[in-house]
């Protein structure tokens, strides 16, 4: 069992040649572990989408390597990539990109069929997954009849249907209002934690960073140093993750300012609103 899902090493992407070349991503390294939610933030044009496309084998890097469970996907021939995309990755797009002529159920089932499932099996699987995501009543709707949040949940179901190792989402909340956006992010986090999938989200939306296990800051195609902050669930102080006292509970990692707070936390009951380990980032 590999401990790494995706290993991005010194990856670069240059568009164009010579004078007009644009270095969209410049020697970026990143490892994503199973069950981890990574949020990549950064200003517009910083290379987030380019990086995500390369991670999902949609775009070939001009330098560096990307390994998925030990396979160097950045070196695979074009002919082998569709299968990798189909089975290893689940993509979620900013504007949903559902197939407008197909029903909700068919939108999800078709992806299972592409991976070789029979139509009966694909539909059953899709129906079960959609029901789980709260769309049981919407199976026969056309996408145009759905709200934005529902559409994105269909897209999530579509991304999950083939049990991929990694979910890649580009600005998944950009077309949603903040409440719905938050719901979607929570859903993605739940998926990572309950199903052990890794989730990489690209966004410039500050409001969603608290659902991530790790927040990375991309600027001009490179990660800038960040200090990952967490909130002590007991005293509610902001602490640097790397230096904090940590404790595991119910599969979640919590960070504390001191042993005292940790002991209190492990001994006492958990206040409801601090179920989530809070993270903050600061650019240094």
């Amino acid at each position, binding site marked *: 069992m590999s401990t790494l899902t995706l290993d991005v090493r010194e990856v670069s992407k240059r568009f164009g040649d010579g004078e007009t070349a644009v270095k969209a991503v410049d020697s970026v390294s990143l490892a994503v572990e199973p069950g981890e939610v990574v949020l990549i933030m950064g200003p517009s044009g910083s290379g987030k989408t380019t990086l995500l496309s390369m991670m999902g084998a*949609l775009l070939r890097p001009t330098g560096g390597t990307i390994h998925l469970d030990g396979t160097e996907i950045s070196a695979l021939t074009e002919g082998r990539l569709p299968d990798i995309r189909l089975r290893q990755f689940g993509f979620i797009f900013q504007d949903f990109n559902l197939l407008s002529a197909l029903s909700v159920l068919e939108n999800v089932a078709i992806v299972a069929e592409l991976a070789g499932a029979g139509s009966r099996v694909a539909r059953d699987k899709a129906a079960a997954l959609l029901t789980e995501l709260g769309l049981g009543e919407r199976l026969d709707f056309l996408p145009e009849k759905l709200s934005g949040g529902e559409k994105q949940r269909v897209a999530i179901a579509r991304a999950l249907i083939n049990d991929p190792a990694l979910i890649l989402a580009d600005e998944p909340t950009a077309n949603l209002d903040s409440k719905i956006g938050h719901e979607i992010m929570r859903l993605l986090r739940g998926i990572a934690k309950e199903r052990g999938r890794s989730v990489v989200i690209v966004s410039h939306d500050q409001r969603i960073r608290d659902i991530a296990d790790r927040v990375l800051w991309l600027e001009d195609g490179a990660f800038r140093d960040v200090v990952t902050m967490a909130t002590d669930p007991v005293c509610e102080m902001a602490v640097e993750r790397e230096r904090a006292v940590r404790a595991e509970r119910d599969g979640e990692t919590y960070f504390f300012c001191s042993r005292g707070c940790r002991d209190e936390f492990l001994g006492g009951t958990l206040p409801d609103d601090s179920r989530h380990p809070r993270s903050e980032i600061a650019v240094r």
Partner: protein
Amino acid sequence: MLLARRNLFRDRTRFLLSVLGVAVSIGLILLLAGYRSGIYRQASAYLDHAQGSVVVAERGVRDFLGTSSVLPAGSEGAARQTPGVAQVTPVVSQFVIFEMHGRKDGFFLVGYDPAKGGGPWDLAEGREPAVDDEIVVDRTAARQHGLAIGDQIRLLDRDVTVVGLSGGTTFWAGSMAFARISTLQSLLRAPDLESFLLVSPAGGTSAAAIADRLSIPGTEVLLKGDVIANDRKLMARVYDAPIGLMVAIAFVVGVLVVGLVIYTATIERRREYGALKAIGARNRILYRVVALQALIAAVAGSVLGVGLAYGAATGLMAWRPQFQVEIEPVAIVFVLAASLLMAVLAALIPARAVARLEPAEVFRG
């Protein structure tokens, strides 16, 4: 695949447009092919119905319709003497101009001996000519010219009376008319003129055997089937190029209509196809979706087109009875194959667009 069907039916107007495009194209092709078959059918109608399986013509004459033939004197007698010959029907054929109610029209006039055969095979009204100034004319032509039994026609330097109307004798460049052989002989001032002999072999003798045995100096002996084929070649020389050209144009128009309709539909959904590609659909699958759309449109269109062709053919023949449109089963098979080819060619137009879609494009706004 489901997606192809859904995509098609989602843009209903567009789908109907492409179906209609194919239907018109296929209908036109079928109609043209039927028109051609009809011409051929008309061209061989006389020989198809006349008795005999061997034709004797003047040396060098190999067809019935295109060339005038003058047999050497005594040919009929020689043919009768040939062993294995059961019956010999002499005919004279000549293109003539009739003048009727002040209007002129060309007729293919066949002179025959009612006692020996070679006359109208479907006498719709009236009777065969009993004397020299009587004539049977094609019923459709008669109707067009307002002729009825008892009417007079000016034929060269004499007047003849219409005594009968024949069916199935509409003709490619005019119509047929029938008179006694002696009428033609005196009209043409050639008392013993005979153009062709239609020879029937006796039972047990084959047409080929009779053809071998008939050696009459100055004549050409041919199987009736070969004469018909030569007549068709004559027609083909006139009609096949323009009809072929029109068929090709109709076909190309069909391909373009379907191709462009599917192309615009594909371009409109390029983001969706791009998303499918990003999700992991291979080009092959997207081609299939696109090609299937073209195929559905083509098949639906050709079914409608066959219906259109039958409708148009019936209408045309009712309106202008001299046109005969014969839609043959083989032509239907041919156009169905053509519609499949149409779909394949039409799908090539959008397939290129699909192939060029970059999967990474979907992440771009």
